[in-house]
């Protein structure tokens, strides 16, 4: 058993716990900026899990993208919430018990699958540099059409978002 085999579950577990903790904070705090930044740190912890699972490119990409995404989320929350600072302690939840039930049910269902399936042997991953190269080749060869589709979808979403959000002109 090599050192990486011992440390890998440890780091995956630690960052996983951090992701779960910040995920809980998202819905526990009443300050909206805190909530958005807790989601950011949850996502960053997920990125760190990717790094621990030797998916270096994806991990760094996740950490980079989420910083921008969640900061923009924070500004929208401040714009559109009644009480972004959470000073008044407004309750902004509904159907609480049903939601808790649904969440726990989903978790238990997935956990049952996780523990019932026989997962088979662990395979060795390639070196990070090799991985980045192979991912590039994958994108440029087999998955090129999918990647192009993603690009077109982004363009469509940009146009759609602008069309929805733009102020109606007075005719």
């Amino acid at each position, binding site marked *: 058993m090599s050192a990486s085999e011992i440390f890998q*579950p440890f780091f995956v577990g630690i960052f996983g716990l951090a992701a779960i903790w910040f995920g809980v904070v998202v819905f526990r705090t009443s300050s909206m900026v805190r909530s958005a930044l807790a989601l950011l740190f949850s996502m960053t912890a997920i990125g760190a899990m990717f790094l621990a699972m030797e998916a270096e490119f994806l991990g760094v990409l996740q950490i980079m993208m989420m910083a921008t995404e969640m900061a923009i989320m924070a500004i929208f*929350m401040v714009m559109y919430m009644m009480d972004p600072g959470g000073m008044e302690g407004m309750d902004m939840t509904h159907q609480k018990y049903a939601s808790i039930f649904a969440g726990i049910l*989903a978790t238990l269902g997935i956990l049952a699958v996780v523990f019932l399936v026989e997962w088979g042997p662990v395979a060795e991953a390639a070196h990070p540099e090799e991985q980045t190269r192979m991912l590039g080749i994958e994108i440029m060869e087999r998955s090129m059409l999918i990647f192009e589709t993603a690009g077109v979808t982004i363009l469509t979403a940009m146009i759609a978002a602008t069309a929805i959000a733009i102020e109606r002109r007075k005719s």
Partner: protein
Amino acid sequence: MTTLMAALVVGAILFGIGLYGALSQTNLVMIMMGVELMLGAAMVNLVAFWRFLHPEIYAGQMFVLIVMTVMALEMAVGFAIATGRFRAKGSVEMEEAGDLRG
């Protein structure tokens, strides 16, 4: 196999938290945060499956890239709807959005 299990358990719990958030919050932006958390859980699972079951197939990593794109798109369109709604009604509380039923 323990690492794969650990990652999958984390994914399951994050998915549960995200589902709770998406169902229980009344504000559109908070609902979107729940959805983001669920997508994050999906990404954890995808990377774990890629790493521990099929590290030689890079379509697994490709799938994660697509999920990241979906997260960004969901934010963009969601905020556009929030902006439109806020302009029209002055709030993005989904309890008051019954008029969207048509």
